[in-house]
C-alpha cells in the first residue's frame, strides 16, 4: 500500500511538472520538442528488458523480444532524428547569436 501511494504521488507530481515544462515555446521548436519527448517515452525499453528477462514461455518470450525491439527502435531512432533536425537549425542560429553580440 505504502509503495502504491508513493507511486501515485510521483505520478501526480510528474504530471504537473510536464504541464509546467512546456509553456510559451516558439513555433520554431514545436517539431523538435515533439520528436525529443517521443524519444523520451522510449524509456518503455526498460520495461521490455524487465519483462523479457522474467519470461520462460517461448510465446511470451517472443512477445517480450518484439517489445524490446520496438523500444530500442523508439529510443535510438527518436534521439537520432531529433539531433539531425536540430543540427539543421544549428549553424544559422549560432551565426545570429554572434551577430547580436557584435
Amino acid at each position, binding site marked *: 500500500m505504502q509503495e*502504491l501511494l508513493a507511486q501515485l504521488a510521483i505520478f501526480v507530481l510528474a504530471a504537473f511538472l510536464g504541464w509546467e515544462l512546456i509553456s510559451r*515555446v516558439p513555433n520554431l521548436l514545436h517539431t523538435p520538442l515533439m520528436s525529443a519527448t517521443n*524519444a*523520451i517515452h522510449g524509456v518503455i525499453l526498460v*520495461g521490455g528488458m524487465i519483462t523479457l528477462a522474467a519470461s520462460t514461455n517461448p510465446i511470451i518470450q517472443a512477445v517480450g523480444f518484439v517489445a524490446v*525491439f520496438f523500444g530500442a527502435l523508439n529510443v535510438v531512432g527518436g534521439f537520432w532524428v531529433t539531433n539531425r533536425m536540430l543540427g539543421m537549425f544549428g549553424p544559422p542560429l549560432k551565426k545570429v547569436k554572434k551577430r547580436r553580440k557584435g
Partner: protein
Amino acid sequence: MQVATFLAYLAAAALFIVGIRRLRRPETARSGNTLAAFGMTIALVATLFVIEFRSLLLIGIAALLGAVIGAFSAQRVKMTAMPQMVAAYNGVGGGAAALIALSEFYHMETGGHESVVATITVPLTILIGSVSFAGSAVAFAKLQEIAFSGSVSFPLQQVVNALLFLGILVLAANAILDGAILPFLSPVASVVAILASSLVLGVLLVIPIGGADMPIVISLLNAFTGLAAAASGFVLENYILIIGGTIVGASGTILTRLMSSALGRPLGKIIFAGIAAAGSSKEELEERPVHDAGAEEVGEYLADEAEKVVIVPGYGLAVAQAQGAMHELMEALESQGKEVLFGIHPVAGRMPGHMNVLLTEAGIPYGKLYDLEDINPEFEDTDAAIVVGANDVVNPAASDPEQDTPISGMPILEVEKANRVIFIKRSLSPGFAGVDNPLFYDQDKTMMLFSDAKQGLQDVVSALRSS
C-alpha cells in the same frame, strides 16, 4: 529494487527534465536532446543490474536490431519526410507498452502473484498503447501516401467507435474479475482480445482525419504513448517508467494544444469532425481580370511610394531557392532608406520553424523575422506587402465566417490591411488547400507579378536599382 538502480533512475529523470527545459530555446535545444539521451543511457544500464543475466543474449539481440534499424532510418530519412518518421518511432513505443502489459499479465496469471493495481492497469496500458500503435501506423501511411489518403469515413462511424470502446471495457472487466462476466473467455484470452480491438479502434479513430492535420495527431498520439509508458510503470512498479512516461504524457498534451492553436485548428474539430480532404474537387475557376504588373511597375511603386515594406515568404520561395534573391531585395530597399520586415506564418515551411532557418541561413537578420501575432498589427501602416510563393497563409477567405473552406479558422497574415499587396507567383492557381484567394482580383490594391519566385525577385531588384 537495488538502491543503486533507484538512484540511477532518479538521475535519469532529472536529465530528462533538464533536457526538455533546454529544448525550449533554440540556442540550447541540441544540448537538451543530448542530455536526455544521456539520461536514457543511464536508465538502461542501471536496468541491466536488476535483471537475470541468462536473458541478456536475447535482450541484446532484440535491442541491437532495434538500435541499428532506428539509427539507419533516422540517418537516411529526408527532412521533408520527418513527420511520418516521428510517427513510426512513436507507434512502436506504444506497441512496446501494450506487449509489455500483455507479457506481465501472463506472468501474473501463471505466477500467482497478483496485485489489484496491476490487473487494472494492464488493460489500460494495452488500450492506450495499441491505439497509439495503430493510429501512428495510419498516420504514417497517410503522410507517406501509401493508403487512407484524405479523409476516410463511413456511416455511423462514431457509433461503431463507441460500441468498440464499450466492448473493450467489458473485456477489461472480465480480465480483472477473473472471467466472471464472460465465463467462456479466460483472463489471458480477454487481454489478447483487448489488444486486437484496441488496434481496430486506433485505425478507426485516425482514418477520418485529413493529411494536413497529421502533425497535430502525431503529437497527440505521442502524449498517448507517454501515458501508456506511465501505466506500464504501475504494472511493473517501476519508477523511471512512471516519471518518464507521465512527463511526456503531460508535456505532449500541452504541446498538442500549442500546435493546434498555432495552426488555428481546435482539437475537438480535428478529432470528431474528420475534415474533408483538401482540394479534392478542383472546379473550373472562372476567368476574372487581375492587375497583371511587370517588374518595372512594381519596382517603380516600391521606389516612389513605399516607405514601409513587409515581405511574406511561403513554401514556394524555398522551392525556387530564392532566399538569396530575397536578401538582395531587402538590401536594395534598405539602401533607399525604407523599413523592411518579414512576416513568418507558422506553416510557411514544411514544419514550424523551417522558414526561419532558411532565411537566417541566407543572411537575413533574425530580428527582422516576425511571428504572426507580432506582424499583424504592423500591416495597418504598411505601404506594400510583398507575398512570395504563398497563398493560403494570406487568404482572407480563411477568416470569412460565410465560407466553409478547408482553411477556415486558420489564422492568416492580414496583408489585405496594407496599402498595396504585391504577389510574386507563377500563376493564379490556388495553393495547397485549393481555395481561391479573393485578394488576387482586387485590381486597385493588388499587383500580380507572374513569375518564378527567384526570377521575379531579381527583376524587381534591378528595376528598383535603376529607378
